[in-house]
């Protein structure tokens, strides 16, 4: 009986309705938290003594980078659930994650590059964090390419799910090899995100933004998931009822 809620998550109509109900809550919560975080980060937080106001890009960059990894892990977890229990909805979740994750990764790269223009004087530096993000972007792109290359939906689901699981095993190996690769070639970069000595006035908005981005991701996921379910179940009869009602 404890598992009833879990079994119900396997039913597309149930998840569709649930997602429709939850979407506005997450949407408004994300808007409020992100606005509060932005106000804290852009107005209340003092300028950095070395970087001046340039450091404020961290309030978009760090949450994006954090989300890029978290979305990948979410995607791989959903994919694993789909592989093991053959749950259609789990595959739909994984499929919805890919584009969102790639976008967050791209945002992290773009903001990191802009920050690098101020700090290093170049748009691109072979900094380990940026390289890891770039590889993560390739992983997302590979996942999406594999998915779109296979016509049969079920096979596409299972093949891309396996790729996501293999990828998530590799992500830490890739990350640490890139870090070691870099530390052996050049001195560590000046950027130290999330250093504990960051004053509270800077840290609190950052954590707020992290929370806001997480809620924002759930919101995006719910919206995309509904689209994904509609696409997959377009021939089912419950769709007509759901859309009419």
């Amino acid at each position, binding site marked *: 009986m404890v598992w009833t809620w879990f079994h119900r998550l396997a039913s597309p109509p149930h998840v569709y309705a649930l997602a429709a109900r939850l979407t506005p809550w997450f949407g408004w919560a994300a808007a409020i938290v992100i606005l509060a975080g932005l106000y804290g980060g852009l107005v209340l937080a003092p300028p950095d003594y070395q970087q001046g106001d340039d450091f404020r890009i961290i309030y978009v960059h760090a949450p994006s980078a954090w989300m890029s990894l978290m979305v990948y892990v979410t995607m791989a977890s959903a994919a694993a659930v789909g592989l093991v229990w053959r749950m259609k909805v789990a595959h739909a979740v994984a499929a919805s994650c890919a584009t969102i994750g790639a976008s967050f990764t791209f945002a992290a790269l773009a903001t990191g590059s802009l920050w690098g223009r101020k700090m290093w004087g170049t748009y691109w530096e072979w900094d380990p964090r940026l390289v890891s993000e770039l590889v993560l972007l390739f992983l997302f792109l590979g996942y999406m*390419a594999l998915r779109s290359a296979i016509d049969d939906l079920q*096979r596409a689901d299972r*093949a891309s799910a396996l790729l996501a699981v293999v990828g998530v095993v590799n992500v830490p190996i890739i990350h640490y090899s890139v870090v070691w690769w870099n530390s052996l070639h050049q001195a560590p970069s000046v950027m130290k995100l999330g250093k504990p000595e960051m004053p509270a006035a800077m840290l609190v908005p950052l954590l707020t933004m992290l929370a806001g981005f997480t809620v924002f991701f759930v919101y995006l996921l719910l919206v995309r998931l509904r689209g994904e379910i509609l696409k997959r179940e377009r021939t089912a009869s419950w769709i007509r009822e759901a859309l009419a009602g």
Partner: protein
Amino acid sequence: MNTSALQAARLILARDLRLAVRKRGQFVQPLAFFAIITTLFPLAISPELARLREIASGVLWVAALLASLLALEFLFRDDAHDGTLEQYALSGQSLTWLVFAKTTAHWLLTGVPLALMAPLAGVSLGVPYAALPGIIVPIALGTLVLSLIGAIGAALTLGVRRSGVLLTLLTLPLALPALIFGAQATDLAIHGANFAAPLYLLSAMAVLGVTLAPLAAAAAVRISLE
């Protein structure tokens, strides 16, 4: 079922090697590809050996990875076309072992010859003779890792049109750690330094790959056959 998993794996290994000997064309192609790629660099950059020596490690590694990747597309393709792969899956033998045997055959037929040929290209790029073991051993290990990871990608892209580019996109990001440490080992060897540390890390990856990759590749084969 009198044949044990190991025996079956050995039979498949022997079969793949025999097939390669009879169809020499496929076996030679990656080697020729490697030779051409490594020839392009001196022509594109400069004939100065001192400059070439600085980039030799990177050139050898990228060329070896691409050459090995080129051959990966054929790892399962012929067997999938004529139904052999399906018979393997239905044989009741552990598909993991069979896939591992095929991957090993692929490595013996592309990775090892590439590793043995790389010193030749290395010398032409100004690598000192003393550094040659630092080319052979890391490249042999690195191509093993690539074959193992690539087997997953090759199985996933079975039956996909224009799978070559897709296979590259799937495999290379996952093979980056092998490239990083392998190229580092070779670079250290070229500069006359001790290259044991990156080699150990590369070996660790090979061990991890041998342990886990055939499981994933066998699962991928099953998905593609569904």
